[in-house]
C-alpha cells in the first residue's frame, strides 16, 4: 500500500515537473508546479516529516506560487506564447542525456540501497529524539546551536538576493 501511494506521489511529482516545461501557457506551467510541489509534500508526510510537509505547503505551494501567479497576472503573461522548445532531434538529445544520467543513477545507485557505510546512522535514533523534543525541537535545536552560523549567513544570503534584485529593478535615471 505504502509503495503504491509512493509511486502515485512520485509520478505526480515528476509529471508535474514535465508539465512545467511543456505547459502551453505560464498559468498552466504554474499549476503543474503546484501539483509537483504538493506531491513532494505528500512524500514528506510518508517519511513522517510532518513539519517539513507543512512548511512545504505553506511556503512553496502557498506563498511563493501565489506570488508567481500575481506577477504573471500583473504582467499579463497569461496568454499562449511562442514555444522556444525545439522539436525533433534536439528534444531527443536533451532527453537522451538527462535520461542517461537518470538511468545511470537508477541502475547503479538504487540497487545498492541507501546505505554505503556501516557507520551510518550515528548517534541517537531520530525517533527517540522526536519523542523527547517534538519534531520542531529536533529541527530547531541544531539550527540554533550547531548550525547557527549557517542560519545567520542564510540571512545574509537572502539579504544579498534582495539587494541584487533591487539593484537590477531600480532604474538608474
Amino acid at each position, binding site marked *: 500500500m505504502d509503495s503504491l501511494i509512493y509511486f502515485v506521489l512520485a509520478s505526480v511529482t515528476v509529471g508535474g515537473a514535465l508539465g512545467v516545461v511543456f505547459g502551453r501557457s505560464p498559468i498552466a506551467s504554474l499549476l503543474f508546479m503546484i501539483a509537483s510541489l504538493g506531491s513532494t509534500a505528500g512524500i514528506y508526510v510518508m517519511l513522517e516529516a510532518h513539519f517539513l510537509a507543512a512548511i512545504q505547503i505553506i511556503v512553496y505551494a502557498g506563498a511563493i506560487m501565489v506570488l508567481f501567479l500575481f506577477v504573471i497576472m500583473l504582467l499579463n503573461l497569461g496568454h499562449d506564447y511562442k514555444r522556444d522548445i525545439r522539436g525533433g532531434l534536439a528534444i531527443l538529445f536533451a532527453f537522451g542525456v538527462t535520461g542517461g544520467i537518470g538511468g545511470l543513477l537508477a541502475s547503479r545507485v538504487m540497487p545498492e540501497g541507501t546505505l554505503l557505510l556501516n557507520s551510518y546512522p550515528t548517534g541517537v535514533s531520530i525517533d527517540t529524539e522526536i519523542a523527547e523534543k517534538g519534531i520542531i525541537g529536533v529541527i530547531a535545536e541544531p539550527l540554533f546551536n550547531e548550525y547557527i552560523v*549557517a542560519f545567520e549567513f542564510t540571512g545574509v544570503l537572502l539579504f544579498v538576493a534582495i*539587494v541584487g534584485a533591487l539593484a537590477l529593478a531600480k532604474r*538608474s535615471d
Partner: protein
Amino acid sequence: MSFLNQWNYFLALGPQAILTTFAIGILLFGVSRNNTSDEHQGWLLGRISLAGVIAAGIVNAGLYPFADRLSDGIVAVDRYALFSNWVLLLGSAMAILISISYVEKQRIQVPEYFALLLFATVGLMLMTASLDLMLVFIGLEIASISVYALATIDQRSPKGSEAGLKYFLLGAFSTGIFLYGVALIYGSTGSANLTEILNATVDADDTGVMLITGVIMLAVGFCFKVGVVPFHMWTPDVYQGSPMPITGYMSVAIKAGAFFTFYRIFGIYLDNIQFSWGTVFWWLALVTMIGANLVALVQNNIKRLLAYSGIAHSGYLLITVLANNTTSESGLLYYLAVYTVANMGLFAGFVLVANHAEHRVEVSDYAGLGSKQPFIAMALTVFLLSLGGFPATGGFIGKILILRGALEDNYLLLAIALVISTLISYWYYLRLAWFMWMKEQAATPNTEKAPEIEIPLALKLVLAVSLVLIVYAGIFPSQLIGFIETSLLKG
C-alpha cells in the same frame, strides 16, 4: 576554545562579520543620501569599502593567535583559511580601486555596487573557511548571487544584462547539480560535515556508488564555478558582457575562493576516495589545459582572451588538487596569490585603456600603447609574462611548484601537458605584448584617435603595487613560500 560558546563564531568569522557590517553600512549610507547625482559618491564609497577591507584584514591578522585552536565547529579557523582570506581581501581591494573611476564614469548605482562587491567577498571567505557542505553552499551562493547582480548592474548595457542572465541561469543549473551532490553525499555518509565525511570514508571502496556519484556532482558544481572544460562555456560570454572591473573580480576572486575550497574538500577531506575522482580530474585537467590554450590562440577580444586564459589556469590548478601533496598545496596557494595580483593588474590596465568604459577591447586596440603609455604597457607586459610563467616573475615560481608537486606524485603526463600548454599560452600572451610594443596604431580614417589616458591615483597604485609584487615574488619567492608552508592544511 570551542564553539560551544557561540560568541566564538563571531571571533572566528570576524573578517566576514566586519565586511558584512561595512556592506550594510554602505547601503544605508546610499539610502540616506539618496543623491545619485553626486559625482564623488564613487570615490567616497570606494574609500569606505576599502576601509572595510582593511579593517577585515586587520581582524584577519589578529586571528593568527587563535588559528587552529577553534576546531570543533563547522567553521575552520586555520592558517589556510586565514591565508585564503588574505588573497581574497587583496583581490577585492584591487577590484574596488579599479572600480572607483569606472562607476563614476558609467553612473552605476554606487552603493549597491560596492555593497555587493563586499558581500561577494564575504561569501567567498565564508566558503573557504567552511567545514560543512551546507555552509560551503551558502557561501558559494552569497558570492554567486552578488556577482550575478554585479554582472548586469549596468542597465544601459544590453550585453551586460545578457551576460548576467546567462550567468544566473547556468549558475542556478550548476547549483542544482552541486546541491544534488551534497544530498547524495549526505545520504551515503549521514553527514554534511567534512570531518565526519572524512571519518566515514576511511575504508570506503569503489562499491559506494552513491557516495561517488555525490562527490562527482559536487566536483562538477565546482568545475562550473572555476570554469573547467567542458563546464566552462559560460565564461567567455559572461566575461565579455560584464563590466570590466567585475570581470576582473570574477576571474580572480571567484576562482581563488572556489579553488581554496575545492582543495580543502577534495584534497583533504575526500582524499580517502581519490580513486573515484582522480581519473576524472586527470582528464579534466588535461582537456582544460590543452583545449583552453588552443582556443585562446585565436581570440581577439581581450576579455574573451582572458576568459580562456583563466580556464587554462583552472586546468593547471586542478593538477594541484589531484596531486595534493605539500608541494602542490604550496603551489596552489602561491599560484593563486600571484595569479590574483597579475590578473587584477592586467584588468587595471584594461580599464585604463578602455577609458573606464567598454570600448577598445580588441587586441588590435593595444597597438602602439608602448609608445603612448609606456608605464601601462610595461606593467601589462610584466603581468602577461607572469601569467605565461616567464622566469623571474611570480608566475614562474607558481608553475614550478605545481610541476614539482605533479612529479612528486608521478603525474608525468600532466606535467608534460602543463609545460606544453604553458608554451602555447606564451603565444597569445605575448601577442598582446607584441601589439603594444611592436605595432603602430592603425591610421585608418574610421578609427577615432584614442583619447589621452589619464591614470587616476587608485589605478596607479594598483599597477605599481602589482608590478612590485609580481617581480618580487619572482626573484625573492622564498619568504612567501615560507609563509605559505606554515599555512598548509597538509602539515
